[in-house]
């Protein structure tokens, strides 16, 4: 009897506990849903308003949300006077064609290699080299045909593009040869660990050739630009260069401070700490003057800004140093005993292990220039062709003609935000690793 009562009481208790738990979870869900709405609403509004035509429904933030008619007028305005789409289409066709042909080619070369199994290394290399060469000639011809006659006048341009493709092909050939080393295959129990390795390599190749085709396109047939496209192009250029240069600098500094021991190491760290306490804008006029002396203001704002973003970037070494600190020192020591110089240790041991922090650094360096208004506007100094998107759009919102430009600002903002957000979300994992690591280590 008492036993039964106990069981019943226990069940009662359990049930009430479960109910309690459910209530708590319900509250949490409510809070999270409300937060999500608050977090997303401004962006939804932004997108909605970007579809309100600046011609038909003039006005700043009017007192209604959903445009009376959805129109692409704002977006059309951004590209007005630019042949952006045909330009991009051309480049993409070239890229796809070139990548596809190269993929086939390398595959064929691989087969040839396998056939020539009994023969010497020289023959194999000759086979490979010969076929690649033939391929390149064909490719350049293809590019030229697709480009129309833009090439005809300029042999320099043609040579540059040729060189780019030869470089790419060479890299690909090396990758292929390495992967397919016969010695490696002859090891008993050798298995390819990653099933999708081949696919991944092809994807990488497509991306590589796409980028190359775009560069070639920029050199061979520059597009005509609208204001917005120019700003966008400026920002993209700055972001690309900055992300590469800054990453090299940051990694160099953090590697040196983390893993090498030399006189003055502590001093450098202390000096950087003290310099970091000065507000960044304090030095603005001096920087402007220095850039002006080099001719890198106004029309030269793009290289000028790259210089400014990169020059002092060595001071932001904390997070990647923290990462390097976690790699065991004995790896370096072991490699040094194995016969590596410190440079080889850096290149062959530490860099491959530092992939997360390399991606984090690139991501940060790439994203920062998109949001910079202060230096960008100061360096461009009213010269519209030197603006980045932030300055251009800021000026649209803060003109006297704000009413007229607001929806166009929305459209411009959407076009900036979409790719950046996509990139960020794709690499979110590395970002989280970086910030948490950085926060924990200070």
């Amino acid at each position, binding site marked *: 009897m008492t036993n039964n009562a106990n069981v019943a009481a226990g069940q009662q208790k359990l049930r009430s506990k479960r109910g309690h738990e459910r209530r708590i979870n319900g509250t949490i869900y409510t809070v999270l849903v409300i937060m999500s709405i608050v977090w997303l609403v401004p962006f939804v509004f932004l997108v909605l308003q970007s579809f309100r035509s600046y011609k038909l429904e003039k006005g700043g933030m009017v007192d209604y949300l959903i445009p009376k008619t959805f129109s692409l007028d704002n977006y059309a305005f951004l590209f007005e006077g630019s042949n952006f789409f045909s330009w991009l289409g051309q480049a993409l066709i070239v890229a796809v064609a070139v990548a596809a042909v190269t993929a086939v080619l390398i595959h064929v070369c691989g087969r040839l290699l396998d056939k020539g199994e009994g023969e010497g290394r020289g023959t194999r290399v000759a086979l490979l080299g010969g076929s690649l060469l033939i391929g390149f000639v064909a490719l350049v011809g293809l590019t030229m045909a697709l480009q129309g006659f833009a090439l005809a006048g300029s042999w320099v341009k043609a040579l540059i593009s040729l060189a780019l493709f030869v470089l790419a092909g060479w890299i690909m050939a090396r990758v292929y040869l390495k992967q397919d080393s016969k010695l490696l295959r002859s090891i008993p129990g050798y298995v390819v*660990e990653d099933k999708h390795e081949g696919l991944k390599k092809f994807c990488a190749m497509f991306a590589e050739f796409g980028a190359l085709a775009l560069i070639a396109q920029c050199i061979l047939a520059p597009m005509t630009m609208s204001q917005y496209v120019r700003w966008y192009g400026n920002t993209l250029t700055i972001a690309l260069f900055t992300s590469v240069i800054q990453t090299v600098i940051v990694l160099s500094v953090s590697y040196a401070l983390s893993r090498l021991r030399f006189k003055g190491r502590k001093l450098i760290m202390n000096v950087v700490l003290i310099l970091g306490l000065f507000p960044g804008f304090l030095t603005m006029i001096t920087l402007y003057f220095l850039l002006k002396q080099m001719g890198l203001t106004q029309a030269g704002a793009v290289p000028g800004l790259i210089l400014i973003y990169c020059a002092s970037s060595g001071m932001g070494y904390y997070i990647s140093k923290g990462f390097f600190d976690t790699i*065991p020192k004995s790896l370096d020591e072991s490699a*040094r*005993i194995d016969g590596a110089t410190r440079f080889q240790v850096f290149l062959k041991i530490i860099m491959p292990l530092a992939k997360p922090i390399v991606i984090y650094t690139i991501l940060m360096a790439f994203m920062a220039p998109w949001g910079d208004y202060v230096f960008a506007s100061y360096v461009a100094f009213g010269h519209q062709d030197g603006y980045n998107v932030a300055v251009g759009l800021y000026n649209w919102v803060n003109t006297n003609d704000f009413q007229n430009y607001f929806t166009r600002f929305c459209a411009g903002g959407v076009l900036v935000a979409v790719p950046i957000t996509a990139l960020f979300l794709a690499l979110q994992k590395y970002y989280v690793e970086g910030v948490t690591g950085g926060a924990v280590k200070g």
Partner: protein
Amino acid sequence: MASLKLEHVKKVYDKNVVAVHDFNLEIKDKEFIVFVGPSGCGKSTTLRMIAGLEDISGGTLTIGDRVVNDVEPKDRDIAMVFQNYALYPHITVYENMAFSLRLRKMNNEEVHRRVCQAAEILGITEYLARKPKNLSGGQRQRVAIGRAIVREPQVFLMDEPLSNLDAKLRNQMRAEIILLRKRIDTTFIYVTHDQTEAMTLGDRIVIMKDGYIQQVGTPQEVFETPRNLFVAGFIGSPQMNFLKARLVKNGGEYFAELYGVRIAMGAEKSAKLAAKGVGGQDVILGVRPEHTQLVFDGRDGTIEGTLRVNEMMGSELHLHVDLADGTSVILRIPTLDLTEEQRRGLIYGSKLRFAFPEKVTHLFDPKSEESLLF
């Protein structure tokens, strides 16, 4: 294959912390030397100086006939196995082992031959295509060793290579290192804090403490004639028992008096003591636990104690016994030496008597802690 010479080698950190004082040692070609000592004794530092990973603050280090004080580690022709293995995580076992050879621009066929041969010796051929993270501790250990032997180095350095393994694997690897040493006949320097490893592996053992060499000798030498209290306590397990005693000289003969018992030191020891000119003085008398015997027949010359702990180790008993003045000693008694009845009597608090032959005793000066028989 080369001999090594360390002359007055010294390591000073940050101008005041001395890690190694005046280290002098000559290592013969193809010798297996073990540095042993408690942590912080400077053994690893010495090894790292030999490897070139630490600067040498003073003295000279010679490998073969070349002074290598200022030579980069990569040019010293040495190989090293690290405590945490230090395998390169991003490349396969094969490439890990080939890494040093590729850096030396050796041709592919030769690299392949050497890697496969080393893998064969160590029995890791089937793991060659794996990444280190997919290996067990013992396998990683083998790869680390393999990476060192493909080099065919002049000197083979090992820094506590077995301390990250569990006890069973450690014993197994220890045996394998002995075998390995037979196969690749080169100079080995091995650092450990474990005296068992030192005793079983080394041709000679270098015992260190606080940056000073305490004693250098073959395993047998350091076990039988420890030079000082530290070495006596460090080598052997369980640790040697130290008893306060009074040394008395009577004519040409010496006696030790302790706990009311008088033990003759015998002719050989007396001669040594006399040669050193030792008179009557306080001494510390050392007896290894395995050299003690339980005495049940109440004969003379035995010491009485109270049993505190009785550890049954299977083939033997470890008896922790408190003496009259509170000194604790350990007796190591083979189980088979006792009758069932005698064994049953060994319970907490029971009184027992033990003795030891004079031949196995050690005498130390309580002040200098040096052996009086050396």
